[in-house]
């Protein structure tokens, strides 16, 4: 399927906006909806594992050793649930 972008003329767009592809939500970067962002303070983090299950958007990557890494800001919408959940103050919400 050809790449459809905001410059694509109507004749080249698919009828009804159908996408002839799967798993394409990945391509829709929703991070710019954010007004406040979580900042990961790794020195305070105990890797307790409470933050990433509560993220509604899978924006906290977990590596092979089951340790969380820094936020994926492409998708984090800044809801702040992780910061509320963290018992160690390792996530701080800051203005964008």
């Amino acid at each position: 399927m050809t790449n459809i972008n905001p410059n694509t003329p109507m004749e080249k767009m698919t009828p009804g906006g159908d996408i002839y592809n799967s798993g394409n939500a990945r391509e829709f970067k929703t991070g710019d909806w954010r007004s406040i962002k979580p900042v990961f303070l790794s020195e305070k983090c105990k890797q307790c594992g409470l933050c990433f299950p509560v993220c509604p958007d899978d924006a906290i990557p977990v590596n092979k050793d089951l340790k969380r890494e820094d936020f994926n800001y492409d998708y984090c919408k800044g809801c702040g649930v992780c910061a509320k959940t963290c018992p160690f103050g390792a996530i701080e919400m800051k203005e964008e």
Partner: protein
Amino acid sequence: MSIRERLSGNEAAATAMKQINPDVVAAFPITPSTEIPQYFSTFVANGTVDTEFVAVESEHSAMSACIGAESAGARAMTATSANGLSLMWEMIYIASSLRLPIVLSLVNRAVSGPLNIHNDHSDAMGVRDAGWIMLFSENNQEAYDNTLMAHRIAEHESVRLPLMVCQDGFITSHSIENIELEEDEKVKEFVGEYHPEHYLLNQKEPIAVGPLDVQSYLFEHKAQQAEAMKNAKKVILEVAKDFEKMTGRKYGFFEEYKLEDAEVAVVCMNSTAGTTKHVVDELRSKGIKAGLLKLRVFRPFPVEEIAEALSHLKAIAILDKADSLNAAGGALFEDVTSAMYVCNKHVPAVNYVYGIGGRDTKADDIEKVYEDLLEISKSGKVENPFRYFGLRKEAK
């Protein structure tokens, strides 16, 4: 050879559906269209068709199930009336915007309230800008014929739009008339099979249907729908030509009844055209040059063709069986007069709102309309373009 039968309009629609044998029918009963899914469910129960019949809990669900089925790659049909269509309203727009050629049998009835279950066109007029092709039928034969042609039009590659076949509630839906049916095999061959290029159940090509359509895209998708509606005009005529080859019955955008040499004419849709033909014949026998334009294809609206067909007249009356309640005339009146304006054809025109909530439309009423038209044609003046007939008013 076609088969002589006598059927009601609802039986005619259900018979067409039986012969089409769609993959899915999802419907909810509502007067006066109830009989269509009722008859159809007996075909399902008897094994006459191999359709999956979904007995849904509402019309919103009926249209939703049709959308799901059609996206999956199936051919889906439904039937409804009035408030049933109102409850479908949200999904009516989804169906057309997702370019799903669903076929709906709409048995026209007044949208309440106050509560009324009788015929007028307020249901259809409520969805006139929803991106559906809309065919109107004078009688049971036309309801049957329009349904047989529906899929060929709706599913055409250059169209891909849902389509509704309208007929008048009770007046045609519950009246038994003679009808010519086509043989099952011939219908099957005429309608053909449905093989969409992209569909959800295709394992080889996973697709997403109806994704988020933000500011950079919706405008273009709407323009595509508008383009498809324009393309439908050509397809409607092509399909009608093929249909005529099979049945000998001729269809166009509209029927011109004694219009060619007429001086005054009425424009109307559905069963009123039958009554009007009778009046035209009566007037012709008295030497009055009366004519009729019966519109079959309301969406897409045949702008140039209508303007051309009416351009030679001295006065026109456009009859609306739904009041737009806008102080500017009914929907058909607005479309016809706007078509004539943009085509630079000026003929004095007057609008009559009539038949609301099943009010009887009598030959006498229509004769009076022609009398008014003769007056207008003499003076060339229209005193009050927004009129009623059949309405009770205190005598002045």
